[in-house]
């Protein structure tokens, strides 16, 4: 009850500030207001949603949607854009968390099976989507007159983007529920594999499109992908090793140092054209598998730092959801989303069967693969900026798809974790 009253108080204060009082004309001055409002109100919305047995992440997203420019405009478009400045750090932190959860010694007996499930699912998804997009190209409002290698390139690009999963949402749902078990492990392994495949697939598809449109750069596909993949992994491993040494030798202010490492992984990594998710994942893997810190110092730091970052990240994502895109290409997006869902289900069923993965994780893993979020959108923005004549149509379609998947995916995944019995009992209990 107190939480409801607090939420009502915060919303009333925000309404009064935004609607009644004259605000600053300087856009940057609104960031603190939006940030504070998002931190408090989204945290409370996530809590309320969790009481309905839905993921907190969905609460943060719905809060963002309701408060954002598409609905109430309490968080304006410019405020939402400012809030997204933390996206890089949030994605890096989430990926580090994923790396910290992947202990190779513990996973070794199931590693081959996990790779099989992931590989088969991704292959089924990609191959079918590529064929469908290639055949349906003349009837899709993107480049209906595309022919030859260009048509192949665009179909490959669309198939890659639509195939992608969301490591951030998956890891966030696992983290918020403190879930542990075979389903969490398998889902995480498949989304990480999907992220690697996305980097490969996107690189190849973009190179195909560039070659077909005569805009190819001098650098070869192989060099580009080697730099992006191996460079990211090496950079991340180096940052992870540095963090591990710090934690062992100094061990103080672990939360601040962890966040600083995420800033480096995100900002420096992006400038060097590394893939931040891969780099941060490598950092987490090195810490967990090579030089784990003594005690729970890092785990506690992650728990303390992650909550506000996740709240703001997903609230900002919700505020940036574009309902107009959904209205514009809703039917097409709905059709593609349905096809993707069926393919994920079919692909995982085949993979699980061939890899002989049993219950409960086998039949449930598909539910962890539905979400799509930031990385997918980021790549689409890249396409739209490089090929504005048809890339904008791709962006609109993918934005609409992502809006659907980011709202539905976490709900499905949490239910699956619940059915698998992997949600830690009492994760909502107060600490003594």
């Amino acid at each position, binding site marked *: 009850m107190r*939480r409801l009253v607090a939420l009502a*108080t915060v919303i*009333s204060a925000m309404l009064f500030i935004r609607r009644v009082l004259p605000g600053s004309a300087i856009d940057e*001055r*609104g960031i603190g207001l939006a940030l504070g409002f998002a*931190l*408090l109100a989204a945290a409370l919305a996530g809590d309320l949603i969790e009481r309905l047995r839905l993921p907190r992440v969905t609460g943060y997203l719905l809060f963002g949607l309701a408060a954002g420019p598409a609905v109430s405009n309490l968080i304006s478009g410019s405020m939402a854009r400012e809030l997204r400045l933390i996206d890089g750090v949030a994605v890096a932190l989430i990926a580090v968390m994923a790396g910290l959860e992947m202990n190779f010694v513990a996973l070794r007996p199931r590693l081959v099976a996990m790779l099989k499930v992931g590989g088969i699912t991704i292959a089924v998804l990609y191959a079918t989507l590529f064929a469908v997009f290639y055949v349906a190209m003349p009837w899709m409002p993107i480049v209906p007159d595309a022919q030859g290698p260009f048509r192949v390139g665009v179909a490959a690009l669309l198939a890659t983007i639509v195939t992608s999963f969301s490591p951030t949402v998956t890891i966030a749902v696992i983290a918020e529920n403190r879930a542990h078990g075979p389903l969490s492990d398998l889902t995480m392994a498949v989304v990480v594999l999907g992220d690697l495949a996305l980097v490969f697939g996107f690189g190849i598809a973009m190179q195909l499109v560039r070659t077909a449109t005569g805009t190819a750069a001098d650098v070869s596909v192989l060099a580009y992908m080697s730099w992006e993949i191996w460079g990211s992994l090496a950079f991340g491993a180096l940052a992870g090793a540095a963090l591990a040494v710090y934690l062992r030798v100094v061990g103080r202010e672990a939360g601040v140092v962890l966040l600083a490492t995420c800033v480096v992984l995100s900002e420096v990594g992006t400038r060097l054209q590394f893939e931040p998710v891969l780099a941060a994942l490598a950092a987490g893997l090195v810490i967990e598998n090579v030089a784990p810190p003594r005690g729970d110092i890092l785990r506690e730091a992650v728990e303390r730092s992650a*909550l506000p970052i996740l709240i703001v990240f997903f609230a900002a994502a919700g505020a940036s959801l574009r309902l107009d895109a959904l209205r514009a290409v809703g039917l097409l997006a709905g059709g593609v989303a349905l096809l993707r869902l069926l393919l994920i289900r079919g692909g995982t069923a085949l993979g699980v069967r061939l890899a002989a993965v049993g219950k409960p994780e086998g039949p449930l893993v598909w539910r962890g693969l539905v979400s799509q979020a930031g990385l997918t959108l980021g790549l689409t923005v890249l396409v739209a900026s490089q090929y504005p004549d048809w890339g904008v149509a791709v962006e609109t379609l993918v934005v609409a798809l992502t809006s659907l998947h980011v709202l539905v995916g976490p709900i499905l995944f949490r239910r699956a974790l619940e059915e698998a019995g992997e949600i830690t009992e009492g994760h909502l209990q*107060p600490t003594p």
Partner: protein
Amino acid sequence: VRAAVAPAIVYVPLGYLLGPHGFTLLSSSALRHLDLVVWLALTVLGVFAGLGLRVRGPQERAMLLGASVEALVTIAAVAGAVAWLAGQWSLPVANSVTSVPLLVGVCAAASAVVITGGADPLRARAARIADLDDVAVVLVGAWMLSWHQGVTLLDAALAAVVVVPLGAVIAAAGLLLFEQARNDAERGTFVLGVLVLLAGTAAYLSLSPLLIGMTAGVLWRWAPGRADAIIRADLEKLHQPLVVLLLVLAGTTVELTALTLWLLAPFLVFRLTGKIAGGWAGWRIIGGTTAGELGVRLLPCGLVGLALALHFNQMMDGPIAAAVVSAVALGAIGFEILTVGALAGSEA
């Protein structure tokens, strides 16, 4: 003898070297990204001032009154002197001949204390007065900020009045949440959210972050429950980094111009005079110590004064505001040296 706050003598020059006038490791654009952090730091200082505001019992009330008188005397001495000298020296603050001297005066009024190695019966009392004289500084500073933006004095007063209910409402939300948090991470999120919302509200509406923070601090201090203890425990971890941050930021703003030196000279001389006179006036109300001792104890510049100068620099963003920050920052170094010297001499 060591200063109670992180020494300005170290961090202000460090900020100068790192900033746009030094090696440009912190460029002007990078500093602009820290705007929200400055607003947050000011809000946190306001919360500290509010949490320290106890007025139960006649002795506490006398302390508050004495500290406020001491601060107001210092403001009057410094502002009056700077205003008179600005006219005499034809300083380029002619358009703001009232507000700039008053700003320098308000920044001069905040005090810190010095921790000495041995048993020091006066220290606790001086520290309490240094905490309480922030109240007058925050209130006058908030009124000045509104005045600077408003057209009339009445407008200014009305704008300042808006801060209090807004701060109280947001603080009330915190009050409902802090004790209900399910774990440390959630409590930390609530504390951070409330502080950022307070700072963000002040920034968005161009209100005083110090006053909105102080309002919240007072509410948490006076309300039943453990809200004040919770927020104090969380903020104490932030205190030292904030002190360092504000001193370094002040250092990045320092400009060694003629106007800075013209403002620095009366700041040093008349703050000294004002603190001694204010200490004497405060002593008349509080009693229990000697006037000169109290004034000397209060010589180190309080961080709130420096924060206020930085805040006006954010709001006004011009050479005059930068000169005020520079004078206050350099003055803080001067008083730090003076106090350490004076106390070392008295110990010897």
